[in-house]
């Protein structure tokens, strides 16, 4: 018990933190408004047929609103980028997002009232492991809320705040994977959880023993 006692306490405390804070809150979902402005379909002058003539390999084609304008967003191997954005009114392709545009997207989406603290560029990996350029917009609120905006698409792909970082560390301590918190099947956890099961089972056995031998002791 002395061997795994500290981990027992860590499991209890980290577990308590994780169940107390709503997981959607931790993921930063309340930090941004869901996009709800309807598309200005009637403004569209550049048709899908024209788009396909210009980008024959376009897939995942979506019409969305970006900075108050209808745009096509799609994947194509053309050029130096993976995700392309083309103005649906004029047919002009959009460059990578500028700092000013990122600022505008962040302010429009942010549900809080704090001002922007910093905006900085970042090259990061997306879910598929590809390197993508981002703008990192931090707000000056109590939780240091931060939005990560894809420069290619203008999408907000990550929402972070201090509670998330604490949660991340709680998770690492909970699963005993201290480097990146991605490996639930690590050997440390295996060893300690096995010992912990033994400790708990022996505790249960001692309890049963105590309940059954009490009468003899009284005699």
């Amino acid at each position, binding site marked *: 018990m*002395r061997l795994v006692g500290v981990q027992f306490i860590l499991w209890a*405390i980290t577990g*308590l933190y994780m169940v107390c804070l709503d997981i959607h809150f931790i993921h930063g979902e309340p930090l941004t408004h869901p996009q709800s402005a309807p598309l200005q379909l009637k403004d569209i002058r550049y048709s899908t047929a024209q788009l396909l003539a210009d980008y024959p390999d376009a897939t995942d084609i*979506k019409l*969305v609103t970006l900075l108050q304008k209808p745009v096509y967003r799609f994947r194509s191997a053309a050029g130096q980028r993976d995700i392309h954005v083309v103005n649906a009114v004029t047919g002009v392709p959009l460059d990578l997002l500028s700092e000013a545009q990122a600022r505008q997207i962040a302010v429009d989406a942010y549900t809080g009232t704090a001002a922007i603290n910093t905006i900085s560029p970042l090259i990061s990996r997306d879910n598929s492991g590809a390197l993508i350029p981002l703008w990192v917009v931090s707000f000056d609120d109590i939780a240091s809320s931060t939005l990560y905006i894809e420069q290619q698409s203008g999408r907000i792909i990550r929402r972070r705040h201090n509670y998330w970082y604490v949660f991340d560390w709680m998770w690492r301590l909970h699963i005993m994977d201290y480097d990146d918190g991605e490996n639930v*099947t690590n050997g440390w956890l*295996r060893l300690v*959880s096995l010992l912990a*099961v033994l400790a708990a089972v022996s505790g*249960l056995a001692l309890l049963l023993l105590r309940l059954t031998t009490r009468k003899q002791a009284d005699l």
Partner: protein
Amino acid sequence: MIRIVMANWHKWLALLVGIQLLVWLVTGFYFNSLMNSANNVPTRLPVQHEGYLPGRELYPPQAIDAPPPVTVSIIWVLGAPYYQFEYNQPLHPYFTRQRRLFDATTGLPWQISVEQVASIARKAYKGSARASDPVLLRPPIDDLPRQQNPLWQVRFADEFNTAVYFDALSGHVIRHTIDRQRFDDLMFTLHFMDYTGTGFFNHPLIVIFAIATCLLALSGGYLLISRSGPSGRQQASPCTLTVNFVSGAASASLPARADDTVFTILSKHGIQLPSECGGAGTCGKCQMQSHSVPPVNDIEKHHLNERQLANGIRLGCQQQVGKCQQITLRKR
């Protein structure tokens, strides 16, 4: 004294969360060592829906008779393109989705037919087992507790009890579920105490248990490192503890040091006083009768009544041999 209060709490907390603690440990060990189902469905096949778009005459989305959506996507079902008008942008696909589908060639409203779901199900399934007819299920769906949207379900009569779930409008595959995943899901249900099937771990029951477990673990840690011993200091000089037995067994003279507790000296010589805490001053079971009248400490006042104290009854773990050199026990 705080130790006794804590020990008392520790006992009741252990009674409350003991079984769940064991469940957490066993299921946690399962996640760590035995679970490997997430991407391991032997009956799953990817379905290719996509076709070639260039050259097709598409109906312009702005001409479709529908309220303007937030997003229009071009999706593919069995090689044909469709417009998906999305009226909300849920952050997770299992949140309620408000959508309409239109045939991208004709612009007419469209949704998948039962026959088409059955045909996609055959493409999505590797094996020869017989498929059930597609059934449109409304949430809550047993296999997918988080899902808030209706889904088609097709069951296959195979050894894995494969069930395949499809999007209600497009017929795209959402998930294959087999018995191994249902078992993993059961482990998660137990680990998250999610007996009402929310699919999440933020609910009052587990919060209460987590608080109780924190108190249990912290009080346990405190009890483990703190021990209540005798009060007052004794020299470490050699002396002798004489033990008489009511049962008539021969008296024993045990060599000791004045600062040893009676409890440790007795157990060193094979005489075990009744005890649950091992001489830590928590259980109050290691009673003995002293011939002298040694001072009483708070621990003893808590565990013994006035009459016992007046009769010289003390706790073996709270008395040092220096002040209590002759004692009587009931039996050896």
